[in-house]
Structure formats: C-alpha cells, structure tokens
C-alpha cells in the first residue's frame, strides 16, 4: 500500500491535524471544547479512511460517532457540568499515570521499530490501480466506474458475518434498554412502577 503525491500530502496533513486535535482534546479545560476537539479528530480520521478507499467506514464513522455518540456526550455535559471545573484538571495520580503512559509509549515505539526493521512491511508494493474517469456517458446506464466499497461491505455483512451482525443489533438493544433504566429518575419510577 502506497499513497503518492497529493494523497500523501493529504495523509500528512490529516495525520498531523488528528494528533494535534487529540493532544488538545486530552488537555482541554472545558469538557465541551474537549468534545468539539474529539469531533475534529474523528472527522480527520474519516478523511484518512477515505484515503485508503474505505468510503463506507468513513460515512458510518461520521454518522454514528459525530451525529450520534458525540451529540449524546454534549447533551450529558450540558446536563451534568453546571459549574466550571475547579482548576483541577488531573487526578492526584497524575505522575503515576504519566509514567505508565510513558512506559506504554516506549513499548509501542519499540514494537513499531521492530516491525519497520522486519522486511515484512517494507517491500515495495505497486501503487494502487487508478480508477478510470467517469465519462459523461450518453446512454442512460449507471456508471460502473465508481468504487464498489459499500456494495461489497453490504454483501459481506449479510452473508458471511450475518450472525455477528445480529448479535451486534442485540447488543444495541440491550444498551438502549439499560440506558433508559439507568437514566430514569426515581420520580418516574414511582409513577410507572
């Protein structure tokens, strides 16, 4: 897999933006700013998915995360975080946590160096096959030249991984019921019993 030219430049732009947004997100003072920065990270990640031709995942990522989960987060922040955080951003175990993170980072860097040394990843694969341009076809027929990503994923989802797919829907159902039960107030419980 190689990204060349403008795609590589886009990758670096998106990657640097994602990392910067992530750092700001973790250190943000205000929870809403944090959520906004996380949204930025997610959108830049969606851009990176587009670069590797995973269009469906990119769309699903923005739809589910940004449109659903993060809106929920902002809702809860508004309901919960009435007063400004009292100047203490970090826990008492800040140093311990930082040290653990540092160790994990070291370990990860070592692993990455190993993988890079191994010839496993470093051989040169040919660049991606360029898709042909969509001609303005005079006859009325759908253009086949566009990516088929969503069709393929749909086929896989409904054939080979149909059972995990069903289980995932069950997980979502349980989560919905659980969330309603957890977030319900006592007052409502008294009324409806």
């Amino acid at each position: 897999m190689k990204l060349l030219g403008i795609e590589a430049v886009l990758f670096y732009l998106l990657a640097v933006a994602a990392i910067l947004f992530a750092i700001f997100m973790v250190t943000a003072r205000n929870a809403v700013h944090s959520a906004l920065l996380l949204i930025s990270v997610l959108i830049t990640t969606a851009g990176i998915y587009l670069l590797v031709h995973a269009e469906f995942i990119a769309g699903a990522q923005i739809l589910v995360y940004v449109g659903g989960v993060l809106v929920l987060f902002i809702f809860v922040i508004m309901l919960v975080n009435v007063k400004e955080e009292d100047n203490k951003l970090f826990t008492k175990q800040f140093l311990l946590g930082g040290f653990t993170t540092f160790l994990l980072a070291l370990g990860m860097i070592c692993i990455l160096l190993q993988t890079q040394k191994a010839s496993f990843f470093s051989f040169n694969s040919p660049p991606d096959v360029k898709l042909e341009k969509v001609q303005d076809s005079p006859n009325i027929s759908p253009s086949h030249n566009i990516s088929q990503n969503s069709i393929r994923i749909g086929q896989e989802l409904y054939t080979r991984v149909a059972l995990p797919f069903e289980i995932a829907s069950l997980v979502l159902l349980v989560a919905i019921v659980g969330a309603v039960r957890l977030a319900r107030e006592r007052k409502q419980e008294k009324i409806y019993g």
Partner: protein
Amino acid sequence: MNLIVSYVLPILLQVQMTPTNAPTSLKEKLMEGLFNVNINNFLVLSALLFIIGIAGVLTRRNIIIIFMSIELMLNAVNINLVAFSRYWFLQTRGTIDPYMGEIFTIFVIVVAAAEAVVGLGIILAYYRNRQTVAVDEIDLMKW
C-alpha cells in the same frame, strides 16, 4: 536544507526515499512520491493517537473526558484495522478476506456506541446522587 530533506525528514516521516534516480523538478517529486506513505505511517499515527488516549484515561479527572479518551483509543484501533484491510487487499490481490478489517471496524463502532450510551447513563445516575463527575470523588462502592 538538502540535509534535512534527505536524512531527517525520512526518519521522522518514515519515508522511503527513492534511490539514485531521484526525481528532479518539484512537480515530479510530488507526483513520483517524495512523500511515500505506506502501512508504517498508519501504524505510527494509530499508536500516537492510542497513547494520547491512554494519557487521557490515566490522568484526567472528569469522567466524561475519560470516556471521550476511550473513544479516541477505539478510533486509533480502527485506523489500524482499516489500513491493514486495504494493505492485505492490495498485497494479496483480494484473495483473502479483503473487507474483514472494515467490517470489524463497523462492529467496533457499534460496540463503542453501545458502550457510550450505557456509560453516560451510569454517569447521569451517579451525578444525580452525588453531584460530581470527578473520578477522585467516586470512591464509595455503595451509598
């Protein structure tokens, strides 16, 4: 300048420099791939995001931000999955499970959504009882 371009940048950006017959003009450089992104770059990006997420989880005090850091970590994992999916698709010409990585990503997104919903429900319930979202003060097993 030349030194930076030829030695420092490649190490930082994990670029494989094209050997002796390097392209000359700027346009050629861009087109022929001075920046030559391969799977390693995706791994580095993913690792960095994951580490930032871990830092957030281990050090922040606001439980909602801890939750968001967990979402960030899951997102970092997703980058790996998608990149490897594409990598194997091209490497094997689509003979082995070319879309499994992307499909696993879908499941990760689904489970992350479910996790966020239940977690936020717990936070709301806890806040109603204790009026705090700081993990320092969540120290009772029962109240």
